[in-house]
């Protein structure tokens, strides 16, 4: 089986989906000849033509709105926003239309679209290129928010997102676009949405993360094992709607939980998970839930961004603290 980077796996899934289904259309800025600024759409236009791999004008609201119109007509559009920092004009379309078209027409019109965007800090990019505001999207009923953390899951989850009959925002962690490699078989098999993946089993503490933060979280779990702490690692993968049961089952076993995300702390998705555990898993807790997050500040420019991002050390420290609690 070939070893692929995460971005290559995205490309493979797009090619597969387009080959399998003539209704799949890719659109966005520079996605055509240029193959996307991160090369996620490389080669697609040559293979599928400029009408199915559409270089749009520079207009993000348009990209998301086109997706809604195309999807209502039964196409399966996959829009690309170059960076999450430029996704905000799409929020109107996502909140007011994509997420509710099925609901407001009671099933008469539907919106099987995917909006992909690279997201997150740590690639020494210019200002506005390091956002991780996934929680804004995860707040929207009717939407799915999916974040892959490995090439294999990027392939399987993107296929699932494209085949899903409802709108999906697919957030691709830029920092690990090329930093992780893995074997991916182009078998057209989708992975399930709405399901968290237990990447590592352990009985002492549950570590929950998604996207690029799995890199630090898995490294922390390795190092904690050397200290005799067996960490269970969960990749949440779908943030909306998210897999409550896998989290609760794990916490029931370990009694301890650390949530790791690079987004700012206040009202981040970690708060949602902590609330879930407080509501439905309180009695299995042996220690307070800990959050290791980005700080409540603007993501700094590259000179300071490594200080902003949660490190392996911070994850380990939090894990030790909850394990040693009481």
């Amino acid at each position, binding site marked *: 089986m070939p070893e692929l980077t995460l971005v290559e796996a995205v490309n493979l899934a797009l090619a597969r989906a387009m080959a399998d289904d003539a209704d799949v259309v890719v659109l966005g800025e520079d996605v055509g000849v240029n193959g996307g600024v991160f090369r996620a759409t490389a080669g697609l236009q040559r293979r599928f033509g400029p009408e199915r791999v559409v270089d749009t004008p520079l207009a993000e*609201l*348009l990209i998301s709105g086109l997706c809604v119109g195309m999807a209502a007509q039964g196409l399966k559009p996959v829009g690309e926003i170059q960076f999450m920092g430029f996704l905000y004009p799409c929020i109107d379309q996502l909140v007011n239309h994509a997420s509710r078209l099925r609901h407001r027409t009671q*099933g008469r019109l539907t919106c099987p679209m995917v909006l992909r965007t690279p997201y997150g800090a740590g690639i020494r990019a210019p200002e506005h290129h390091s956002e991780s505001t996934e929680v804004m999207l995860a707040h929207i009923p009717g939407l799915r928010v999916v974040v892959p953390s490995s090439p294999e899951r990027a392939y399987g989850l993107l296929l699932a997102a494209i085949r899903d009959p409802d709108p999906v925002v697919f957030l691709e962690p830029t920092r690990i676009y090329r930093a992780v490699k893995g074997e991916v078989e182009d078998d057209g098999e989708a992975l399930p949405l709405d399901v968290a993946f237990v990447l590592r089993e352990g009985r002492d503490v549950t570590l929950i993360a998604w996207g690029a933060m799995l890199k630090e979280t898995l490294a922390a779990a390795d190092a904690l094992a050397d200290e005799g702490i067996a960490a269970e690692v969960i990749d949440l993968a779908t943030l909306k709607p998210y897999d409550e049961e896998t989290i609760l089952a794990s916490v029931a076993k370990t009694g301890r939980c650390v949530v790791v995300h690079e987004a700012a702390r206040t009202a981040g998705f970690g708060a949602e998970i902590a609330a879930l555990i407080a509501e439905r898993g309180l009695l299995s807790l042996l220690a307070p839930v800990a959050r290791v997050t980005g700080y409540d500040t603007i993501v700094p420019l590259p000179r300071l961004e490594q200080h902003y991002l949660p490190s392996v050390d911070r994850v380990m420290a939090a894990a030790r603290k909850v394990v040693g609690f009481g």
Partner: protein
Amino acid sequence: MDDTPGSGQDFPVIARFEVRRRSYLAPDGAPLRALPSFASDLDLLLALYRGMVLTRTFDLKAVALQRTGRLGTYAVSLGQEAVSIGVASAMREADVLLPSYRDNAALLWRGVKMEEILLYWGGDERGNCSSGPPHDFPFCVPVGSQAPHAAGVAYAFRLRKEPRVAVCLFGDGATSKGDVWEAMNFAGVWKLPLVFVANNNQWAISVPLKLQTASATLAQKAIAAGFAGEQVDGNDVLAVRAAAEEAIAAARAGGGPRLIEAVTYRLGDHTTADDAARYRPPEEVQARWKEEPITRLRSYLVSRKAWGKSQEEQLAAECQERVEAAVERYLATGPRAPQTMFDHLYAELPAVYA
């Protein structure tokens, strides 16, 4: 005086544009010029007339329902019936309508039932699961945000080589939004089968057109997007219908998009939640009543001896009856169980909702 930058020097003029204004009937119903060919079809003219009268009867009843607590906020189309009717009557069933919230007339023309429209404004999503063409879009409340959808719909037609056209209606206020521009720009690039209709009723709630734009016409906004714009007398249903017919035919034939600016006037309040007397003088509204579309077409039909007092009375009674019957069906619609608010949230409710 020519204030074009560079004028008075020998730089060449590299672009010139013009925008025309189409009208056939004067406010008193007198033909101003040769009428479009469909005007010889008396049945069609009568259908347009009936459509406008039914819409007005329905609108006024809806306001009455709101005033008596039996309907939520409602946006009347008083005085603007010709725009929606003229446009909708030029469409085919397979075409896709993307209306604003004020296009009751177009929805009714396309087969949406009056009780369905009432159900929506009465606070029930089931009103949007309507009897009109299943591919039509429902009312759009976020101003102008339906324009990019229209471009996506038209793109699908183009991709599949289907001889269908998307028709998108929005107000003068909407033309200030990026949404509308982004959609027009894209439609121009891809020569999409898409007709944009700007219903220029002079007002966006309390904001008059002159605070909306310094552009001499809304029609000319198409020019920057690379296609033609035309202004029509929006109180002349023949002008709206003729312009829409031509634009839709051109779009269907691969000629790309067009923008029609239909100049009309909002005779009513913005919605039932608005009191227009706070921001515009009643005299202005009074003066505009002289131009409204229903009297205009009736005068013309009377002059052609195709209409008279008895027909008018019969039509009024018939519309009243149809509206009352629809209101009864609306009021008889049973409530929904609270848990149905989760119906159709997703194709299948995710496990976590169980």
